[in-house]
């Protein structure tokens, strides 16, 4: 199913950040959103997922026949949306393993059914998490550590991808996943995403990034450029390369004129 964003306006406090975003992400495609700092990229991903700091003043986000803006955050996740955070928070006292199991069981839960019936069997869960951790080069010991507590930037991002590969979303939003990653970590994380894509070819991915660098490893089918709270340009992968070469200024001039 497509993710369709229509005329989305969102504020933080009294300040309007999103000023009418229109965007469609097709299943089975990788759609990159590029833009300079402050253009509203992270606001877009947080608003789609329902961060309480942002107020939607206008517009809709449709997915699987529902306006997701009307759903609580956890229902959006259960619908298949996943946000890989730019800055994953730490949750002291809650281990990676327990957290992820709670997340998986929440996804598996069915209204009116005992959660003990729908929960993932322990043995299967242990096997799954071990395999996925090995694939991402995450040490076994991380399962018993408190979530993101004292993790390095690269470790946090790997754990984000670990969660993504365990929860198997149908539409993943990756918010500046490349920030704070060195090139080796970037490769591992990208391989993780690509492996997931090859197993779930119908998954849609919205990749939000400032730099073209990440797109060398996660190859986009579509590229949209965001500026001042709107999508101002759309194109194919070649647009990312052009931005890499020429910077954002040429688009700014085209869209807003020289005097802006």
């Amino acid at each position, binding site marked *: 199913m497509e993710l369709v964003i229509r005329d989305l306006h969102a504020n933080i406090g009294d300040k309007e950040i999103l000023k009418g975003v229109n965007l469609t992400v097709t299943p089975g495609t990788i759609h990159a959103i590029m833009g300079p700092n402050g253009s509203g990229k992270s606001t877009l991903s947080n608003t789609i997922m329902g961060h309480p700091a942002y107020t939607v003043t206008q517009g809709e986000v449709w997915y699987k026949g529902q306006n997701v803006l009307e759903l609580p955050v*956890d229902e959006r996740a259960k619908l298949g949306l996943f946000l890989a955070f730019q800055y994953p928070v730490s*949750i002291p006292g809650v281990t990676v393993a327990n*957290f992820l199991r709670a997340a998986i069981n929440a996804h598996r839960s069915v209204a009116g059914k005992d959660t003990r019936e729908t929960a993932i069997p322990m043995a299967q869960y242990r096997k799954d998490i071990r395999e996925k951790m090995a694939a991402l080069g995450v040490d076994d010991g991380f399962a018993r550590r408190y979530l993101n507590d004292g993790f390095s930037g690269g470790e946090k991002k790997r754990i984000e991808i670990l969660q993504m590969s365990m929860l198997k979303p149908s539409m993943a939003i990756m918010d500046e996943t490349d920030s704070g990653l060195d090139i080796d970590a970037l490769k591992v994380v990208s391989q993780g995403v690509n492996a997931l894509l090859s197993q779930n070819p119908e998954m849609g991915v919205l990749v939000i990034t400032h730099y073209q660098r990440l797109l060398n490893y996660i190859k986009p089918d579509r590229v949209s450029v965001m500026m001042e709270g709107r999508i101002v340009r759309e194109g194919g992968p070649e647009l990312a390369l052009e931005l890499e070469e020429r910077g954002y200024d040429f688009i700014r001039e085209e869209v807003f004129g020289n005097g802006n």
Partner: protein
Amino acid sequence: MVTKLPVIAALTAQDILVASEPTWLQQWRQAAWQHVNESATPLWRRTDLTAYAFADMEFTANASASQLGSAIPAGVVVMPLSQAVQEHGELVKAHLGSAVASNASKYAALNAATWRDGWFVYVPKNHEATLPLHLVLGFGAANTIVARNLIVLERGAQLSLIEQFAGDGGPFAVVASELILGDGATLKYVSMQTWGAKIHHMGHQVAKVGNDATIVWTAVNTGAAHQHVDAETNLVGNGSRVDWMAATVAGDGQRLLTAPWLRHVGRATEAHMDFKTVVKGSGYATFDGMIKIEGGSTDTITRLEEHALHLSPQARSDSIPGLKIDTNNVQKAGHASTSGEVDDEQLFYMQARGIPKFDAVHMIVMGFFESVLDRIPLDTLREQVTADIAARI
């Protein structure tokens, strides 16, 4: 037919004595009783002392309703304190009142003068008790329990001790715990106030820590309507240490106060305090702490953390930490404090993974307490307390 028991306010100096007790103890009780009568009511602004009125507290000579929750670890002396007075008189005489002074407060004096209940625990020199000892104190015939626990670890001794106040009844509990650690001794002490919801709990707990001795103190306060606990670690010995954690849950109608005092007296003493509080409904919790680094204490390391989570807008927590340093040779002194609602970013993160808000709050709160509850050495007790807290959040 219920016999009407006398109340404490109506007792005379003769009523408090136990005929079979030795003269030194009778005199000790009399001195304490004099202090009860002569000392002023404490000015505790955050504790409503009308909840602890002497005119309401019944007194009886055989109030005991204590029991052991575990086997007695091999080589450790465990018996009611009143029995120890007869069988280990010299030991009791040497240590009774050496940690909790009778003149510490009117209520400490009351405890000294009128205690009938409580335990004596003695670990001989260099004896390492491996299994945890679990003491449970509860209400008996009277509406008041006055209990005194005397815990003595000789040089090099080791013990893991759980002291639990549990059950309904009362509502008045006036308790004192004296913890005496000889040189090089190690005590893992879990003190649990898990009373029923109507109890008024007044406690004094003092640990006196010898040279190179260590106390690992874990306080769990979840029960009672009112709690006023003066808790003190006295790092007397050189190289003595305390690792002190607490988990407090104050729900609807509960007013729970802990006043921890930490005294650095010896040289190269080290303390880590980490006190965690969750308040909910109309619950009210107070941390009224003081760290005192005495003049002779050099190369001191001390660290205090206190964190409070508020689960409802009416719930309240007060934090009044104090630090008084009378030496200019402190190695490290640190303090961190937070107070507020469950973090929005944590909640959003968990919900974004499909976890409903209710469950997310639950996991965050239980995670908050994890490091404290993890130190309860008996699995069944830990699981029970964890489940009790989980059910109340």
